């Protein structure tokens, strides 16, 4: 999804420096300090995880760390709320299947 470059009330968004991270092995870029979920959204990633029983896709829902719909495996740790986790250089972000980074079905 498109980033806002100039906003009529807020002007240009204040962002950190551009850093590289990986999503399911693919190299992506985002701004340091912004939520991982925002960096993913800017690259067009909609699906953050699949539920364990029905394998249904989930993505950003509340964007403030309450609903846990956007959790992913970040740097090997599952169930990380990507909407409130700041992006860092070199982060390894993976789609979460149930509670792990790999499909177990």
């Amino acid at each position, binding site marked *: 999804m498109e980033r806002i470059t100039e906003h009529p009330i807020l002007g240009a*968004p204040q962002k950190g420096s551009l850093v590289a991270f990986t999503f399911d092995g693919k190299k992506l870029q985002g701004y340091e300090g912004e939520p991982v979920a*925002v960096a993913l959204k800017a690259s067009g990633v909609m699906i953050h995880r699949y539920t364990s029983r029905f394998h*249904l896709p*989930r993505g950003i829902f509340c964007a403030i*760390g309450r609903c846990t719909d956007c959790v992913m495996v970040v740097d090997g740790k599952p169930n990380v709320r990507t909407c*409130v986790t700041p992006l860092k250089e070199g982060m390894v972000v993976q789609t979460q299947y149930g509670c792990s980074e790999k499909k177990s079905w």
Partner: protein
Amino acid sequence: MERYNLIVVGAGPAGLSAATEAAKNGMSVIVFDENQKPGGQLFKQIHKFFGSKEHKAKIRGFKIGEQLLKEANDSGVKVLLNATVTGMFLNHEVTVNYENAIHHYKADSVIIATGASENMVPFEGWTLPGVIGAGAAQTLMNLHGIKPGKKILMLGSGNVGLVVSYQLMQAGCEVVALVDALPRIGGYGVHAAKVARCGVPFYLSHTIVKAEGKDFVTGVVIGKIDDHFKIIAGTEEHFDVDTICIAVGLSPMSQLLKMSGCKMEDNPKRGGQVPIVDEYGETSVPNLFAAGDVSGIEEASSAMIKGRIAGLRASYKLGFCTDDFTLPKFTEYKNDLQSLREGMFAPKNRGKLIENTEEGIPISMNLLTKGFIADDEIERFPGVTKQKGVHPVIECTQNIPCNPCQDACVKHCITIGQHITSLPIVKNPAPCTGCGMCVASCSGQAIFLLNEDFAHGFATVTLPYEFLPLPVKGEKGIALDRSGKSVCSAEIVEVRASPAFDHTNLLTMKVPLEYSMKARFYKSNKSNEKKNN
């Protein structure tokens, strides 16, 4: 264990206000908030607030957040972020989780100001990526500078649904429709009107049938509902959208209060499970208070006053301030709070159909069902007059607690009077200079300047404009009416921007005289071309 006079949970408008008030009275205060940043939801609010001039009306929400935070810091309040309160124990002891450890605190008084969370409505496909809360949309676009979607459908016509729809358009997104299951628009008419004149259709008595898409939202189907909220077959309508935004109310996050053992009640008028509190926000547990949305859903302006009242009461009860100092302040705060709870949208009027204004003027029914005032309804309101030369036309037609326009006019053309919810009256003849301060001061963007003597056969309409790109003088485009329909061609004759207008730019467009009372928005031809390509 660490000791404080006061522990506040939640660093939003209510919590920060409570903490500041108490700290100013000499209490040692710590505020815990689970988020990375303080301010609660205030920093996402980019619209100008309603209310009285004395209480931060016409200031944008995020600016109020900055002021509150500065005040809290200046008064010595300690704010601990990324700190989640996990337990409430007897004698005002709490446990807090931060830096992956549990910490133990004790205070003489505790104020819970945890706010509210969004409600949800389930429908087929509601768990698909692309279905988001309205708060999420605000967070993404206003805090993180990313569009929540390209084409969006909004469910919910309360103030949140209306304000967020407008903000989505400001961020450059397209809002395809605004849908509500209720038969009438729930939020302020002025908020609805500024969305409607941009061309967004309102579907009242409608709801979402399903979200379409396999991996994420690709479309949505809505349908009309009957009196039993069942979809009427054959009324379904499809929209291509990538995002569905849900704004169907808020529920108090009162879990910590429940945990602390105070008396609770289920009160739909206050938004759900809430503590039973006295007029100061004190619960059945002595020196345990609730302030802000957690004790009943209202606006941020009310939350700030409720916070101040709780903070003052906590300091008073523990002997930090005297009767002489405290009692007049209580009266002042209570009066302020009362004035915000007046008018057509007051908590006591929730769900009621108000047919006449306090002045006895019939309410615009079009505004309640379609989002805009019909041509044959507008002239009965006291802000709308026919005059020679330039003068304000105030399309403020519902009693809401707001009065900055009255002081905006240095020539005193506009009167609201003592009662803050009264409709503004425009003096006739008005000694208007055309300065535009009233236009920019109106949080509801409901004030226009009209000059029907601009040139032979032509009038000018000056309107508030908060979008990009800003049209330039000499540009030609189309004037839209209150419903967002194209009515005539228009030429921009003046564009005004000033720090005093606070990002509300003033566009003056020239239209044929017969359209002076219809033309209320401007669309440039350029944006048309772009869309067609």
